[in-house]
């Protein structure tokens, strides 16, 4: 297990990153021009990395499956981005943001990475403002902030309910500038279908042009995966329809370890499922919990209209259970509390799988116009979807899969266990532990892309200046392309009876039931057998229409679902091996009256899994987590 070297620099926490930057190897400008970097994905982490690396002088090639890099799913993030600016003079600091993040992650993240994240957070805001991102401002012209879950300070910067959109368009504008100058070559409607390994190093990718179906070979001295999370393994999630694990999974099969796959975030405030036909779930921003109050009736099976239930017959359960954080308790805790209330028969709405998020008090206190200015677009979205007016009746919300803290294992340099292969943003595992705090995903994506990777990748590329670009007729490219083509042909050749979506829904059902908000040894063991069977059925009974050499949406989905099934098996393996509850991973056997019960003695480690073949037990490698600057404590928001 000695392979896992996290490469955390020596020295005190506060100076690690500064010292690192002062001593990291550099690549001189004329050599940068000869070095090619592939960036897969153009969300916050990918677009910011591609732009910043191109500005430095590297030759960059960027890829996205959407028709434009501006559409990556970072765009849907609503609430905001955290930064330790302390503009509010309310006691914020780099250490506090670091501590909140470590604690929010239930002490399962790496101290040095999280501290660095908190340290560069302030630079992100400066960068975005300089790019022309229209953040919310106060009347004096300065930047405004709001509060988010798991924090007692106001450190969240926002652009109405569209912060992700504005930050992504900022990164996209920087990327567009580099494309225009000719420093970045952009490949839209392209999907990475294989990683190319030469002599143990990542040297390129096979990408499928989704318009023509043609497989293309692309060389890079280094490959960066910024391909997001894998929440769509659950079929229903707040992810975009196209979000997938394929690039990360191909990398995993080529030697990149996958860390903590069972850490998934179930977001407490989503619009509840309304029927079998449902294709995705819609998030209602956590920022709503600044002013909305969460409640259910005290009585079981109370079917009265919310406005007919008097105040003293309502249970504002978050305020009751967590008085110091109230409605702003962290996501994992708020989600579990909602599930508990519904399991107790006090859920509302037709299905009984929902709780109220009520703005009546806020509207009384602030007036409708203030509430509208703060959350107008979210209220409109809710109204569109549910046909109910949240200004008049409380919103109905329920938890849904939203984010995955697990991902490819990376060291301090953000390099995976494959030399030359990097993972940034949600695609890696490093910063959020077992639960991510609100407004921290945007922060991490941009931190990695703007401020971390541009330094750390130089450390590797400095050793590559004598490596000439490898021609893509190299046997390794032949082999990788052949493998990709064979898989596509295999999918088309099954010609079975069940549709891809049918399998995807079956997968999602298993994952939600047994590897969702509550997990048990018994359930997970059952899920293992079910997933194996589902995988076998998929490859013998899936029906994929159309051909390989054309735009074929059915084929695209089939490849992604095939990878999701294998990932699901690994998630279950991981969940089963972690005999404790922490953050989003709640094992019913390990609890204190509904609160997660960690076991720091035996499980204060990162579980990094090595692929050993499909259907084979993956090998577990452990990276022990050392806490030198914070005291391990029971996470309390009471």
């Amino acid at each position: 297990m000695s392979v896992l070297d996290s490469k955390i620099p020596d020295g005190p926490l506060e100076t690690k990153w500064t010292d690192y930057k002062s001593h990291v190897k550099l690549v001189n400008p004329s050599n940068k021009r000869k070095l090619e970097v592939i960036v897969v994905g153009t969300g916050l982490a990918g677009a910011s990395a591609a732009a910043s690396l191109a500005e430095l002088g590297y030759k960059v090639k960027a890829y996205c499956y959407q028709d434009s890099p501006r559409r990556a799913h970072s765009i849907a993030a609503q609430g905001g981005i955290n930064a330790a600016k302390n503009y509010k003079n309310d006691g914020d600091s780099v250490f506090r943001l670091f501590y909140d993040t470590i604690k929010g992650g239930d002490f399962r993240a790496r101290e040095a990475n999280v501290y660095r994240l908190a340290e560069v957070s302030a630079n992100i805001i400066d960068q975005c403002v300089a790019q022309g991102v229209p953040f919310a401002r106060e009347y004096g012209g300065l930047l405004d902030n709001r509060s988010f879950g798991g924090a007692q300070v106001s450190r969240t910067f926002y652009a109405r309910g569209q912060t992700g959109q504005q930050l992504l368009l900022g990164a996209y504008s920087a990327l567009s500038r580099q494309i225009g100058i000719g420093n970045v070559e952009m490949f839209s409607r392209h999907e990475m279908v294989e990683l190319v390994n030469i002599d143990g190093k990542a040297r390129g990718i096979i990408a499928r042009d989704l318009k023509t179906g043609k497989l293309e070979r692309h060389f890079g001295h280094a490959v960066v995966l910024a391909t997001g999370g894998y929440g769509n393994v659950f079929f229903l999630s707040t992810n975009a329809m196209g979000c997938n694990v394929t690039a990360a999974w191909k990398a995993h099969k080529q030697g990149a370890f996958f860390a903590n796959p069972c850490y998934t975030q179930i977001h407490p405030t989503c619009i509840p499922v309304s029927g079998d036909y449902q294709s995705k779930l819609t998030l209602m921003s956590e920022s709503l919990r600044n002013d909305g109050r969460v409640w259910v009736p005290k009585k079981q099976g109370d079917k009265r209209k919310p406005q007919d239930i008097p105040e003293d017959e309502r249970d504002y359960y978050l305020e009751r259970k967590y008085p110091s954080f109230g409605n702003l308790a962290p996501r994992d805790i708020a989600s579990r509390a909602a599930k508990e209330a519904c399991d107790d028969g006090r859920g509302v709405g037709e299905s009984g799988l929902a709780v109220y998020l009520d703005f009546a008090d806020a509207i009384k206190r602030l007036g409708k116009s203030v509430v509208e200015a703060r959350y107008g677009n979210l209220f409109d979205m809710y109204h569109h979807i549910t046909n109910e007016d949240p200004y008049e009746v409380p919103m109905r919300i329920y938890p849904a899969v939203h984010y995955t803290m697990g991902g490819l294992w990376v060291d301090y340099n953000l390099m995976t266990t494959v030399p030359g292969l990097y993972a940034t943003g949600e695609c890696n595992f490093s910063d959020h532990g077992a639960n991510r705090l609100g407004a921290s995903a945007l922060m991490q994506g941009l931190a990695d892309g703007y401020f971390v990777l541009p330094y750390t990748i130089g450390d590797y590329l400095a050793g590559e200046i004598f490596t000439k670009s490898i021609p893509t007729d190299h046997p390794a490219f032949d082999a990788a392309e052949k493998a990709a083509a064979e898989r596509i042909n295999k999918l088309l050749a099954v010609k079975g009876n069940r549709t891809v979506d049918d399998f995807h829904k079956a997968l999602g059902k298993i994952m939600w039931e047994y590897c969702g908000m509550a997990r048990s040894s018994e359930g997970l063991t059952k899920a293992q057998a079910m997933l194996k069977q589902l995988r076998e059925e998929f490859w013998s009974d899936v029906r994929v229409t159309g051909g390989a050499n054309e735009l074929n949406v059915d084929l695209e989905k089939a490849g992604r679902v095939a990878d999701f099934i294998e990932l699901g098996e690994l998630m279950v393996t991981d969940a089963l091996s972690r005999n404790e509850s922490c953050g989003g991973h709640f094992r019913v056997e390990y609890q204190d009256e509904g609160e997660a019960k960690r076991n720091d003695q035996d499980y204060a480690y990162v579980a990094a899994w090595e692929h050993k073949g499909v259907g084979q037990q993956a090998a577990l490698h452990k990276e022990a987590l050392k806490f030198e600057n914070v005291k391990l404590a029971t996470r309390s928001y009471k």
Partner: protein
Amino acid sequence: MKFNLKIWRQKNAQAAGKMVDYTIDNINADMSFLEMMDVLNEELIRKGEEPVAFDHDCREGICGMCSMHINGRPHGPLRGTTTCQLYMRNFTDGETIYIEPFRANAFPIIRDLVVDRSAFDRIMQVGGFVSVNTGQVQDANNIPVVKADADLAMDAASCIGCGACVAACKNASASLFVGAKISQYALLPQGRIEAKERVLAMVNQMDEEGFGSCTNTGACEAECPKGISLSNIARMNREYYSASIS
């Protein structure tokens, strides 16, 4: 609910396309329009036919990827709504629904309802940015912005780049899209430095891509799912003229 669908099918960019009739039954009023399309596609796949290709991704009305022309209107009958946020309750049981791709010379069809909107990206690449490299910036609060201007800039920046404005315009003009981006930067101090070069370059590229001139009819604003105001085009024109003569 039951619907008669007339959908544009086109195998690829070269092939001739045509409207094809489908009927679909047992549709729930709370289904989204795209979920109705999912149901249709599942039926087609079960019958061994190829599903209808259409662009979509976030299904939350923010990514700008969905792009259908429904009953003659981009994104369908509701104002301020993308196709993905349209629900079947917005249609009448038994209705015939016409579904076509966005039509414009600058948006060539790739397949069925999927069109190529990369012209928008190319317009952005010639000037849709502030030329600032990562790291070379000052503290964010050193650039105060008048709140009213910041709010107007945000209104303009809400554009999702879907192209409905182009599809709605009888000249297939991209003026609303370009005007929104020009306005966002023109209203902010960060964007003023390059304002002149930006507007000249972006307007020129818009012409190069084959988009037509503004008709002044306001169809773009009426069909924009994000309510981007026509005043952004006026601001673009003002910026353009002042850049041209100074």
